């Protein structure tokens, strides 16, 4: 054990290859003879396909094959949905449209050609005879009985669900006051910098298929694609090379992934498809998409007594992997950071003629936090008290944890008031309020928004997950003393190649450069679940930690044997197993590999020399374990350990975000003055990685609050189909972040970590909207829907 790395700002070992352009994404992998796929996609939101004429395309130069829905019918199974809700309607979602198209971007045919250009040209040669059908894009219209999208069903309601605990009617009946507000969560496009992409290569001799895909879940995808295309799971290998961002959009199994694999099997050639940005906005899942009404019951002293949220969830035309589950995650987090005795959520989830919604950074929780935090601002406004004080009044105290919510969760640990106090102190909250007051007298419109969020991470116990909530790790020490970690989590930008190496280097007392973290290859790594729901460190990192403990038990046994000592007298310190008396001397520093690089012996490995030694390095022991000539009785050769960690609960990070903005009276422009965030994600492995996650999360929140919205018109045409229309925030749109932390360890795992990948996207949005609304309070504004654009602000000011 050392403390050289954990808790330190260790630079990301991933970055040099990324920064220098030496990393490999799917499109960087070039196999000889690769064919390229382009898709014909529907430009109607809802239409019957009368016929598809592929004749001209098939005979076009360079074209190898064309496949339509009819061609693959009965050969490729439906695109999977893991949602298991009572009475859920599951449309038959085929990889290519068969009789009807249901949204703009719906794949209708695939062209395979010798290069991307020929494939793209041939797309224009395919003539689809469409017969337009009535379109429904508005979720409430879909619920109320608009045009029915799926012939198999009588209406567009995929499911209805009521959840929550406590007597909600009594709570409202007994309340001193109530507030009510309609709240919109617009559709957002995740816009990973690297779009999706698949390269498939079938080996006819071995009857094996390898799929390189830009995914967050290589193992789950392997299982699902194997089932879809009928290849044995152990003959399918999924490799995720570098993944340029996922944000949940690659926590899925898409039609293209199965189809490319199947096409490669048909043609016996490698086939590649790289999504264009237009396809990415049309046909990669969207996030959010809820229209809901929130009602809060409370006492005159600000004590919350009940919360009801009735929501229409816009699922889009089909279910992708987790589509129906996302609104239920909103329901889980409706207690926020507060004691609310009665909570009810009523979901009406509907099909619309749009791309499916699914997990986008936060996945249902940003909606919950936004609703609760906006709600508390309304309560504060109703009572005429400071929004921070309403929050403070309703926090559970640290000694009330585990804290049971009326949504059925047990929060692991928390100290919400300390985080609030710290954020207020950093912001100079009282002074800000005074400046705001003074500013208003001078005609300046300054707004301060506060959000005291709690979120749910480390997804999760298997009981709560559709396909396992554990994570796996193998740790092995190679004969040369190098440490290899295989993690079932599939990090894709979060930095676990670094943070897991930090954990291992400290636990094993080795140099971090001697640790390599391998992930994202089902041919190498034991089965894993993947990276999403801020789970990789809390669940996957814990698996690494416990696997190391197992490995050390074995190493200890071997050390005791080699040192011919009594087990109780051998201890591990500073990367060495030592007799007690020698422990202090051995403790200094980390140990070097026993076989220095570049001096590898020819042929046989050297025999470990133990004669007269009072301590052995882990590398000595690894070598002894591999040479296997002097092992204790009944000991397996080799030095590795595998552990599958099943968490007993989720973790619940929290924090306080404070946003300060000023509005330009004339133009409605919103200018940043301050942004303070105090986050508590439990124990921190690498503060720099945590900062980076918080930065990115807040930026995406700024996008949602002020810029981003996927817009379809009434005909289901996508109006924000390029990055010329869909505004993702740039450096010039974001403020300087003043970040700090509190640290409340989680009791759920031995590392005490909670997770931080989504905190920014969950905690920041309500603070930003709260600040803008607060700036406009002199105009009687209590709520504005996102994205709040300067024109919205101008209209309010202009209205007077």
């Amino acid at each position, binding site marked *: 054990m050392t403390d050289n790395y954990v808790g330190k700002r260790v630079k990301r070992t991933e970055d040099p290859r990324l920064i220098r352009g030496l990393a490999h994404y799917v499109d960087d992998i070039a196999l000889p003879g690769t064919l390229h796929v382009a898709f014909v996609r529907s430009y109607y939101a809802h239409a019957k396909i009368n016929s598809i004429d592929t004749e001209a395309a098939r005979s076009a130069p360079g074209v190898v094959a064309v496949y339509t829905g009819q061609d693959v019918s009965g050969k490729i199974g439906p695109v999977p949905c893991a949602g298991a809700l009572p009475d859920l309607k599951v449309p038959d979602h085929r990889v290519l449209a068969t009789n009807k198209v249901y949204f703009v971007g719906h794949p209708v045919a695939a062209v395979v050609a010798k290069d991307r250009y020929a494939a793209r040209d041939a797309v224009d040669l395919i003539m689809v005879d469409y017969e337009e059908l009535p379109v429904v894009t508005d979720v409430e219209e879909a619920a109320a009985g608009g045009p029915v999208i799926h012939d198999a069903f009588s209406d567009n309601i995929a499911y209805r669900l009521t959840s929550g605990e406590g007597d909600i009617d009594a709570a409202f009946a007994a309340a001193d006051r109530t507030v009510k507000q309609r709240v919109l969560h617009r559709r957002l496009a995740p816009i990973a910098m690297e779009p999706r992409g698949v390269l498939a290569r079938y080996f006819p001799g071995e009857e094996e298929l390898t799929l390189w895909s830009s995914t967050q879940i290589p193992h789950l995808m392997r299982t699902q694609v194997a089932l879809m295309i009928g290849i044995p799971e152990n003959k399918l290998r999924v490799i995720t090379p570098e993944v340029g961002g996922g944000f949940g959009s690659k926590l899925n199994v898409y039609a293209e992934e199965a189809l490319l694999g199947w096409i490669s099997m048909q043609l016996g050639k490698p086939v590649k498809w790289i999504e264009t940005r237009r396809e990415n906005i049309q046909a990669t899942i969207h996030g959010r998409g809820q229209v809901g009404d929130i009602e809060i019951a409370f006492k005159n002293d600000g004590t919350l007594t009940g919360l009801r949220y009735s929501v229409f969830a816009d699922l889009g035309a089909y279910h992708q992997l987790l589509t129906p589950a996302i609104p239920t995650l909103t329901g889980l987090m409706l207690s926020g950071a507060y004691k609310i005795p009665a909570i009810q959520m009523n979901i009406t989830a509907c099909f619309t003629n749009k791309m499916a919604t699914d997990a986008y950074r936060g996945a249902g929780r940003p909606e919950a936090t936004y609703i609760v935090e906006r709600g508390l601002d309304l309560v504060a406004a109703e009572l005429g008290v400071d929004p921070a004080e309403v929050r403070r009044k309703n926090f559970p105290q640290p000694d009330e944890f585990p804290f049971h919510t009326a949504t059925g969760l047990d929060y692991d640990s928390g100290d919400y008031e300390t985080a609030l106090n710290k954020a207020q102190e950093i912001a100079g909250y009282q002074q800000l309020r005074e400046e705001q007051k003074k500013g208003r007298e001078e005609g300046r419109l300054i707004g301060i928004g506060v959000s005291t969020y709690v979120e749910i991470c480390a997804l999760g116990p298997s009981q709560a997950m559709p396909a396992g909530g554990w994570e796996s790790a193998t740790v092995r020490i190679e004969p040369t003393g190098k440490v290899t970690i295989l993690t079932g989590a599939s990090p894709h930008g979060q930095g676990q190649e670094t943070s897991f190496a930090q954990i291992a280097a400290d636990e094993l007392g080795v140099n971090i450069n001697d640790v390599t973290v391998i992930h994202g290859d089902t041919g190498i790594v034991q089965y894993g679940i993947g990276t999403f729901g801020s789970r990789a460190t809390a669940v996957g990192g814990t698996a690494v930690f416990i696997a190391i403990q197992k490995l050390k038990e074995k190493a200890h046994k071997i050390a005791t044997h080699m040192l011919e000592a009594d087990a109780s007298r051998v201890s591990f310190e500073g990367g060495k197993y030592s007799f007690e008396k020698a422990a202090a001397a051995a403790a200094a520093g980390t140990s070097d590999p026993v076989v220095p690089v570049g001096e590898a012996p020819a042929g046989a490995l050297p025999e470990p020399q133990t004669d007269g030694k009072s301590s052995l390095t882990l590398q000595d022991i690894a070598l002894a374990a591999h040479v296997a000539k002097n092992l204790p009785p009944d000991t397996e050769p080799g030095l590795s350990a595998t552990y599958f960690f099943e968490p007993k609960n989720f973790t619940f990070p929290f924090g306080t975000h404070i946003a300060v903005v000023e509005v330009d009276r004339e133009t409605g422009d919103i200018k940043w003055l301050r942004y303070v965030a105090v986050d508590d994600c439990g124990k921190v492995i690498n503060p720099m990685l945590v900062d980076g996650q918080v930065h990115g999360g807040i930026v995406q929140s700024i996008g949602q609050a002020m810029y981003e919205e996927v817009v379809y018109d009434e005909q289901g045409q996508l109006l924000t189909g390029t990055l010329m*229309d869909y505004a*993702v925030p740039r450096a010039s749109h974001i403020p300087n972040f003043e970040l700090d932390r509190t640290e409340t360890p989680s009791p759920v795992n031995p590392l005490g970590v909670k997770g931080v990948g989504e905190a920014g996207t969950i905690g920041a949005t309500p603070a930003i909207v709260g600040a803008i609304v607060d700036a406009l309070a002199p105009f009687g504004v209590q709520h504005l829907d996102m994205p709040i*654009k300067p024109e919205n602000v101008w209209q309010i000011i202009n209205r007077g």
Partner: protein
Amino acid sequence: MIPVEFDYKVPATLDEAIALLASDLDGAKVLAGGHSLIPAMKLRLAQPQLLVDIARIKSLSYIREEGDQILLGATTTHYQIESSDLLKTICPLLPECARSIGDVQVRNKGTIGGSVAHSDPAGDWPAAVLALDAEFVLVGTNGERTEKAEDFFVDLLTTSLLPGEILREIRIRKPSGRFGQAYQKVPHPASGFAVVGVAVNLVLNDDGSCKSAGIGITGVAVKAYRAHAVETALAGTNLDDNAIAAAVEHVCDGINPNTDLYASGDYRRHLAKVHTRRAIQSAKARVQ
């Protein structure tokens, strides 16, 4: 995101370029920085059969002071203008406008000639060249002619360039006397193009009153335009707040402002007034 097939030629001289264009008057397009044309081609909105790349014709890239004129070669990049010490001194509106375009990569490739010849209704350069009352030198098989900027911008993505003609040079009368300039822009958060862009070239009399004002507006209408009514209203005034406020009321005279997802016509009209006022005030404050 893949264009249709096209031919690509790199002429060494302007004459060669003109000959190439003449060889296919319907299908040929001039390529300079490529920052307007290539995206349109990738979306297959533009499908030229032949691209004549003039970016490597060295004689088309220059910034020169000649007599009372500033001469800009058509393929001079935004970055060259942005970083020109000469222009910062004699016509700072040009570097200021250049700085507001796109990002570093765009400014390194994109050219002033390409931008004005594309006549994007939200491009930045059209506002500046209108405010400066620039002249364009157009050359084709029938020789050379000049066209005032105001006559050059005809409609949405349409200029007075005849088939086969190439924009060779932009000529600007060197500002003299007591002048001040400013470019004020509201960038679209996604595209960076102007939701409203206002270029002002103000010349004062010795007594501080307004001798003349050139005001170019982009982003508001189907094409960039000169706000003549504002210019006229300002002339002869002492440019106090009241005079400016009264003048900018006319910025959308005869214009039906664009509406899009980001800004309605009403809001655009309002922004045009506010930013025209701010640009005039800024130009006035900069008068030496």
